[in-house]
């Protein structure tokens, strides 16, 4: 089986054609190194990865592409992951969305904040391919 990951950088306004709706995920982190790592981790899978290094451009990407799963970093400059999550959960159109808040370390306070922000799963850094893929599958993205 041949694997091909497609990556779209929303900040560059890339219009994409998706092979399968259910295999898309959006990852938002204002650290480009993290995005590069995620790209590499998913490089031999057939997930369609959308990335954004700006939370508000990422929000535009979310509205435009409506991926079923969102990974968002908890600590960003303009708006943090918990605030972002509260913002999208206030919208009916995103109640379907699986949100994974990515934390720097395991901390009960941060985990409680993630839960309070609207039923979100958490992922602790650093994480590997197996963890990432397992979470994708668990939250509704199905590999072909």
């Amino acid at each position, binding site marked *: 089986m041949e694997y091909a990951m497609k990556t779209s950088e929303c900040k560059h306004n890339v219009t994409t054609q998706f092979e399968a709706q259910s295999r898309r995920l959006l990852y938002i982190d204002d650290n480009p190194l993290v995005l590069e790592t995620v790209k590499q981790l998913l490089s031999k899978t057939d997930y369609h990865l959308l990335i954004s290094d700006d939370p508000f*451009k990422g929000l*535009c990407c979310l*509205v435009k592409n409506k991926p079923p799963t969102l990974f968002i970093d908890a600590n960003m400059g303009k708006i*943090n992951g918990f*605030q972002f999550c*509260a*913002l999208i959960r*206030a*919208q009916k159109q995103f109640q379907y969305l699986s949100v994974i808040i990515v934390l720097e370390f395991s901390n009960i306070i941060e985990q409680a904040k993630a839960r*309070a922000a609207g039923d979100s799963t958490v992922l602790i850094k650093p994480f590997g391919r197996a963890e990432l893929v397992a979470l994708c599958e668990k939250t509704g993205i199905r590999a072909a």
Partner: protein
Amino acid sequence: MNPLLEAQRSLLAYCRELTLMLKQSLLAYFSVSPPQEKKDYFDELKKYSEELDLLEAFYDSENDMALAKQLHNQCVLLGNEHFQDNEEDQLRLLAKIFQLLAQISATFQR
């Protein structure tokens, strides 16, 4: 203390910035002559107005007038040949864009 209110505050600041950049691009679009420069500013206009449109549900959920969608459509029309050749229609279109920008900016105050 309230993540939703804090998020909305940050979003409004971002959208205010977008409207300012859009206005600057609009002024620049009408002040340059080389086609490539004009195209670059036109692309910026489309980009900023599209972002405002995509984010509208988050900063103005009570209003169903879709002001930002109208703004985006008007900005796209600026590139239309008809409006480039007809000064009076272009003027009318530009006035409409300024009106919509003012209405959108007013929603940021609510």
